[in-house]
Each structure stands twice: as C-alpha cells, then as structure tokens.
C-alpha cells in the first residue's frame, strides 16, 4: 500500500505544477500529508531537483504537443 501511495505521489508531482511547487516548498510535510511513511518522506527530501524540474518540463512539452492529452505515445 505504501509503495502504491508513493507511485501515486510521484505521478502527481511529475505532472501537476501546483503539487510540485507545494512539494518543493515542504517535501517532508507534503509526503507525510500524502500518507507516505517517515522513511519515504526522508528519501523524498533528497529528491534529484534538477531531474525533477527537467522531467516535469519534458512532460509539459509532451502534453502541449498532444494538445493537453496525458495519454497517447508514452516515449
């Protein structure tokens, strides 16, 4: 269950700009509020911020190319 919650949390901060901003402002607090364990929250505090920003931007550009759709070609 905890692993499932973690994937859901990652999916949210990857695609949702507001959720990502809230997370980056308070990583541990947002993780705990999402139901993640203390251990998972500790790990998320150390997230690769450069990678997160670049991935989020890459996903945003993909969605733009698809006209806002989040489905379709995943690569």
């Amino acid at each position, binding site marked *: 269950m*905890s*692993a*499932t*919650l*973690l*994937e*859901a*949390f*990652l*999916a*949210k901060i*990857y*695609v*949702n700009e507001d959720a990502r901003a809230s997370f980056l402002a308070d990583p541990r607090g947002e993780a705990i509020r999402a139901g993640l364990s203390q251990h*998972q929250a500790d*790990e*998320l505090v*150390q*997230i*690769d911020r*450069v*990678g*997160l*920003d*670049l*991935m989020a*931007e*890459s*996903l945003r550009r*993909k*969605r733009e190319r*698809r006209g806002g*759709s*989040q*489905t*379709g*070609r*995943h*690569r």
Partner: protein
Amino acid sequence: MSDGRDQIGLGWRRELAVGILANLDRIDVVEVIADDYFDATRRERRALRTLAAQIPVVLHGVTLGLASAVPVERRRLERTARLCDEVQPDYWSEHLAFVRGGGIEIGHLAAPPRNNATVEGAAANLERATRIVGSAPLVENVATLIDPPASDRDEATWINDILGASRCRLLLDLHNLYANATNFGFDASHFLARIPAERVAAIHLAGGKWIGDIHNAAGRRLLDDHLHDVPDPVYELLTEVGARVPGPLTVILERDGHYPPIDRLLEELDVARAALARGRRQRDAVSEAAA
C-alpha cells in the same frame, strides 16, 4: 524467432511506411507499437496482418506500466493478448516503467523507485502478463531524467533482481543505457558486464539531445527523444553487446519524428549491422581461442 541469425530493423511508423515497404530487402524486421493498434479499425488491422505476412514483426507496448507495485489491469493485458493472437509476432515487449499512479496518467515511461516493492510488483505483473498474453514479454530498460526517488539499489542490480524473479528476457535499449550512464555518472560498459548476457534478446537504438543548462554539467541531462541520429558511443555499445551476448539479437532503430529521408535511416541500419558484426567477430575469436 530469428532462425538463429541477428536481425536488424526499424520501428514501424506511418511516416516511414512507404520507405520501409520499398526497402524490405534491407530491413529484416519491423517493430510495431502495440498501443497504436488497440483501437484500430478492421482495415488497419488487416493492413497490419498484411505487413506481418511480408516481414517479421515484433510488437512493442508502451502503456502497461509493468514495473509497478500496482497490478496491471486485466483489460490492458487482454488487448495485448488479442493483438498478439492476430499478428503472431516473433515476440512482444514492454518497459520496466510505471506510467500512472493514483489515477494520474504520467504520459511517459517513468522509472519507478528501484527497491523490493517494485521488483516484487514487476515480477507479479510479468507473471500475470505471461499468463494472460500467452508468452513472456521481453522487458526494456528505460531512460530517466530524474534519479528515481526512494531507490535503494542501482539500475543494473534492480534489472538483475527482476530478471531473477521472472522468466523474461531483456530488450536492452542502448541509448537509454547511454543516457542514464551519462546523466548519473556510471560506466555503461560496467553495466553490460553485470547483466546476464544470455538473457539479452533484443536491442533498441536511438538518439537524443541535451536539455536544461546545457553548458553546466550539473544542470543538464541527456534526453532520449528518438528525434536524432544514433550517436557513435551507442554503436560502440552495440559492438560490446555483440561480443558478449551468445544468442541471436533483434536490433531495432527507433525514430519518432524529425524523420530524415529513408536512405539516411537505412544507412544507420548499415552502421548498426557493421557494429554488431564487429562484436560477433570478437565473440567468435574468443570462442576459437578457447577451443
């Protein structure tokens, strides 16, 4: 699946169809994106069967999300099963990725946390996929721009753990490997030495570009975008793979846009063929020396 011979081919894309069909003598195999045909018309499916009658076809999925703690939905696997029944591909493949979570579609192949939960989830999903589809998928390593959060092992260990917990063979994407090695500072050759060579059955080749603060090593990442030519280091990795892997390989060049003339892609296939042949000669020389 390939009569014991290496096969070199291209990803089937609508924009490349005419060029591929006009050059079947230079292309051994085509890889079709399975998801493109899940909602295909009867006519489109007939065209796919016609294609499969002319050239070996392999099917490649992009939306199952097998490397997840969440079980893959049965209906998604049943669509894959129906398509495999219809096309009778040499094999089908999917990514070691998660693509959705909590009802949110990521729209991309995301690298999951590399830990026990995703190894166990992937193993369960691969067993379920094998049972429902009727054959085990080849599983592909993915490129990632972010170092997967909450991981407790490196990529080679994680892939080995999944291979150890399943019957699946590996579709090794060499540009994904090259990008991850470049972005996260590990040695791609060392990675190749750590994965079981006898489980590698297929290869993907592609290209990419730098994104981010491209003049600052800490602020940039190599993006696997399938929009550029295959870089030389990836061909060098193909030679290494050819020297290590004992069995036949199916090598697919992936291109998803900015399509060059078909002759340019055929030249890339020739370069790949030559790179693989160099590796095979190295492998054979070692075998002969040992005999």
